[in-house]
């Protein structure tokens, strides 16, 4: 497809979580690895919102950090607007590409330098990417950005701790927008916020997307939020994509048993009387994941094949699921 902005191909990332060398020798242990992300592929079209959902430890933040280059993949490749971001991209070309994407984190306080005034925080990407900009122009631009995210230019004189959580996230958004990016990776941007503040930030993000034609990769563990934001969704379980597809379809007719389970676990806030199905078990340790389909210990449809063979993604209409039962037409 011509309007693909981001193409993630067979992405894997492994972390070494071994005990210290001496302990390993004394206790006769091997090295231990976590496959935080395993063979994940998806594409994001221009102007769309691709959401990654999954429970804690499923690999969402790792994928976010791989995309923006804070981590290097163990395997696989990320292609941004036709250019591979594989190792080796350096100098001016790297900078040209990097300024086109930005990241917003869950905890705005941790991502904003506490000793800097808000003006300097927001101006930082301008100093890096707009080297020819003079102080006055930069100052005006920062005031513009603050207004854009619903703060006022005078707020630039304050420090991050003088703001509420929601306001800090607005500052982080202003900083992300400073260099006119096209693409923003948002890692749980509202998870630390109250629902009423969350609504403000989600509305703001949608407005900015409409105004500037932004493309989002939006990470969340909250399915209602994802439903509200996403055009495409990828469901992660233990580092692998369980299901990926159009948001509408995925919510209307979830295929993978894990997606079904997640949807069933959403509390019935509308009080329609829908009964949740009780979900058994918890996510196994990613250090020692189950063989075969990683979901099989909790899956009501698991059989012998599921316990030995890892299912690949098979496409069916607007979505694709990694499940033997779906592929075999058993469910």
């Amino acid at each position: 497809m011509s309007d693909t902005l981001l193409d993630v191909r067979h992405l894997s990332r492994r972390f070494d979580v071994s005990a210290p060398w001496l302990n390993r020798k004394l206790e006769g242990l091997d090295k231990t690895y976590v496959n935080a992300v395993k063979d994940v592929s998806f594409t994001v079209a221009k102007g769309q919102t691709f959401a990654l959902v999954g429970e804690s430890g499923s690999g969402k933040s790792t994928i976010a950090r791989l995309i923006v280059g804070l981590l290097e993949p163990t395997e696989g490749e990320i292609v941004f607007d036709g250019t591979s971001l594989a190792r080796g991209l350096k100098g001016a070309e790297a900078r040209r590409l990097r300024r086109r994407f930005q990241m917003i984190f869950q905890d705005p306080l941790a991502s904003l330098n506490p000793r800097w005034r808000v003006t300097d925080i927001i101006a930082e990407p301008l100093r890096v990417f707009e080297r020819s900009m003079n102080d006055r122009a930069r100052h005006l631009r920062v005031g513009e950005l603050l207004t854009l995210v619903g703060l006022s230019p005078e707020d630039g004189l304050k420090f991050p701790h003088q703001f509420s959580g929601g306001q800090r996230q607005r500052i982080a958004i202003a900083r992300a927008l400073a260099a006119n990016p096209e693409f923003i990776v948002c890692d749980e941007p509202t998870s630390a916020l109250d629902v009423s503040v969350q609504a403000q930030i989600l509305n703001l993000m949608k407005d900015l997307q409409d105004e500037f034609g932004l493309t989002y990769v939006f990470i969340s563990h909250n399915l209602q939020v994802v439903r509200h934001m996403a055009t495409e969704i990828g469901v992660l379980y233990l580092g692998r994509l369980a299901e990926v597809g159009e948001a509408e379809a995925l919510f209307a007719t979830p295929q993978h048993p894990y997606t079904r389970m997640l949807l069933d676990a959403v509390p019935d806030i509308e009080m329609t009387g829908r009964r949740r199905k009780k979900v058994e078990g918890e996510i196994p340790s990613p250090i020692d994941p189950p063989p075969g389909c990683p979901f099989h210990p909790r899956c009501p449809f698991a059989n012998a094949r599921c316990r030995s063979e890892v299912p690949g993604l098979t496409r069916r209409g607007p979505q694709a699921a990694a499940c033997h039962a779906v592929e075999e037409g058993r469910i």
Partner: protein
Amino acid sequence: MTQPVLSVRNLTVEFPTRRGILTAVQDITFDIMPGEVLGVVGESGAGKSMTGAAIIGLIDPPGRIAKGEIWLGDQRIDNLAPDRMRKIRGRRIGMIFQDPLTSLNPLYRISRQLIETIRTHLPLSQADARKRAIKLLDDVGIPDAARRIDDYPHQFSGGMRQRVVIALALCADPEVVIADEPTTALDVSVQAQIIDVMKEICAERGAAIMLVTHDMGVIAETADRVAVMYAGRLAEIGPVASVIKNAKHPYSQGLMGAIPKLGENLDRLVHIPGSMPRLNAIPQGCAFNPRCPQVFDKCRTHRPAASEIEPGRRAACWLYPEVTEA
């Protein structure tokens, strides 16, 4: 009519500071009936946890109950000496907190913690207390409880630990359980399990629950009634279905509209402009007035008391003629 198991009357909690007195909870009144689940919602800082802390007598000094009364059945408990309150905590009032590790000692086996708590409150032998502990673990859904009881907390997953905490809270058959964000630290798929266990096991024992959470979804599924708090005050209280589907207070209306829902696909969420005031800057009159879309003159000067606006339903808002001044 049956007597409430817990009755909170005009509770006010204050923190004296160098720059004046901060009122964290102001003039809150509610009852919980035996076996009932009362949900308490509101944004962070609304005073939910502080209300819970006042009930169990664990407000951090220099905070103090400045006004009001708390009754457990026919005993007044807000003015009890610390050692008498300690006997009530755990025995007649159970507690479940957000982080299971605050309730469990990482250095002791689960068995020791459960048995000690049981024997503090009930006249049981070591062997009988152990039997009771295993039965409790079994009831909260710990598989193979007889063996797992001798494990340490870190040997359990987050969800399993929270089950242990529920067992610990219920080990002396309390009349009421104060649960403060019991599922907030857990994964989505595990939250539902924990809420179910907590609700079932309290229902079996006839224990009432005060369920503090900022998650309206959890309240919708669990609570019989819900209290909405704002800036330390009660905005609205009533049966859960009516408050969710037909909120009366403009703040509760905004709060409900702000929640994204699976069943509807709106382009924009309802959003309340501004943010909750800090304790040292609570506006005159109705605390919500600077953010309220329906504000009028009286709201800026006079504080509305939570008053009965229909049977079983109270709201603190001048839009309702029955409301009186606080």
